[in-house]
């Protein structure tokens, strides 16, 4: 019983840490341009597929696979921003326009993968040793999150990211080019999503072109749970979501897995709309 509980716990943290990685991308982008980037889940999926292709073509060296995957996903993330979001920002469009554009990107990416690779599930190679798989996934996630934390807090561009998310115009007065910082944010967020994609593939050993949808939505819930815009919030939110889901499935019922996630979301929004770590902003009258 106890070992089973421990196992459930480990399961929860493994899934949770991957949620966190994806949630970070949502939260960073939201923090900086106030956009719910619906295409983020698809970037995650693309990351998984790139990992798959690399490991088929170039061998199952995990480091190489994840490296190429994150480089390419961060590139794709920036590209998406430049094509689908930046033109809207420049036109000072309503937020819903950017949201719809993001949905368009999401539909485009997932169907492009279907077109290229077919709609079927693809098996994923074993990239990490099975016996310590979960521990490795958790460690890699923590490592990536620490890397992010370091960048955001100890590098100039990281500080600039936080500055832009507070006030774009003031940041410009520092000589910061907001477009550059936004691109950087997309690059980092997509990088984490790409890594998460490879990890999910490695963990579940299968990927499909529509996996980004639900996983993305839930990671987004995790971001909201932690307080959207807050980086530690996304990390904690992911873990909480992963744990509640797995424990909920284990001790209550699996059928309500998605309901658990969204139920938490609604409770949080009603009780404390800004999430666990979020800050309140008030409209000026």
């Amino acid at each position, binding site marked *: 019983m106890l070992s089973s509980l421990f196992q459930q716990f480990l399961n929860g943290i493994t899934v949770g840490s991957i949620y966190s990685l994806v949630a970070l991308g949502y939260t960073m982008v939201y923090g900086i341009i106030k956009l719910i980037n619906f295409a983020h889940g698809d970037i995650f999926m693309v990351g998984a597929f790139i990992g798959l292709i690399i490991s088929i073509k170039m061998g199952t060296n995990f480091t190489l696979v994840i490296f190429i995957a994150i480089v390419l996903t961060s590139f794709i993330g920036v590209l998406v921003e430049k094509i689908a979001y930046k033109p809207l920002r420049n036109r000072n469009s309503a*937020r819903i326009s950017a949201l719809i554009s993001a949905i368009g*990107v999401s539909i485009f990416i997932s*169907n492009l993968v279907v*077109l290229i690779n077919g709609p079927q599930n693809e098996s994923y190679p074993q990239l990490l040793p099975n016996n310590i798989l979960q521990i490795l996934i958790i460690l890699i996630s923590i490592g990536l999150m620490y890397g992010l934390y370091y960048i955001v807090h100890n590098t100039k561009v990281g500080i600039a990211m936080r500055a832009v998310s507070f006030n774009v115009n003031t940041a410009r007065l520092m000589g910061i080019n907001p477009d550059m910082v936004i691109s950087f944010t997309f690059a980092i967020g997509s990088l984490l999503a790409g890594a998460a994609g490879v990890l999910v593939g490695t963990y579940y050993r299968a990927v499909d072109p529509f996996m980004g949808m639900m996983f993305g939505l839930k990671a987004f819930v995790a971001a909201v749970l932690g307080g959207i815009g807050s980086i530690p919030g996304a990390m904690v939110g992911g873990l909480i979501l992963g744990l509640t889901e797995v424990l909920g499935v284990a001790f209550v019922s699996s*059928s309500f897995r998605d309901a658990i996630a969204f139920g938490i*979301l609604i409770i949080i929004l009603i009780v404390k709309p800004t999430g666990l770590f979020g800050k309140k902003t008030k409209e000026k009258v």
Partner: protein
Amino acid sequence: MDLSFLFNDYVMQVTTNTGINIIMVLGLNLITGVTGQLSLGHAAFMSIGAYSSAILSTSLGAPFIVSLVTGTLTGAIFGAILGIPILRLRGDYLAISTLGFGEIIRVILLNTDLVGGALGIYNIPDSTNIYIVFIAVAFAIFFMYRLEKSRHGMAIKSIREDEIASEMMGINIARYKIISFTIGSGFAALGGTLYAHFMTYINPVDFGFMKSIEQLCMLVLGGMGSIFGAVAGTIVLSTIPEFLRFASEYRMLTYGIVLILMMIFRPQGLFGKIKVNV
């Protein structure tokens, strides 16, 4: 020239489906386009209408008109009940919670044996026909048009334009948001009842997140805040797949690109004049 092809069952089928969509999108337009409250869970209210009417028709053998009215009212009541807690939220938070509610309702339907769980409900009488849908669409357009022109509609519009100013002009914004959400959900449910009695079979898969998004896209494409836009956008997106039948592989891809290009070059939609800041 032989025009009979315009009146065959195929055209009727597509037209009826389009009509049902129009009713639901008009409901969404009231919530999102007119009131300015972004909803990402409209399909949930469609499902409530569909399910409640389907149960009435199949289990209790109620006449269609009873199912239709009850289904619509049930959807509206759910709209009001869910609206009360979540409409205090604003902007993205509201959008996310509607999304959450939509998913929760779907999961509940999926896990309730009483409504067939994943199997859903079949053998629903096929009571919906093009004439009923035509009347319902006409009613929806008439209702929305009159509502928008009335003092209540004006109050609702003013919330979209400026919540604070609206309240300062003596408008009970909480109440009107709920009214709008209730009516909008009612129309979604009306569409749902018609859908259920047209398809004769429903299950929770029909009412997922993507359905809500599809409805939102119809609205945004046509133009938020415009009845004509909502109708036109729905017609375009409901019928275009039929014209693109040949290119099935590229259909969804094109759909994605069209959405992006639309937002870049014509964010107010094909026929919209209004910028809704949500």
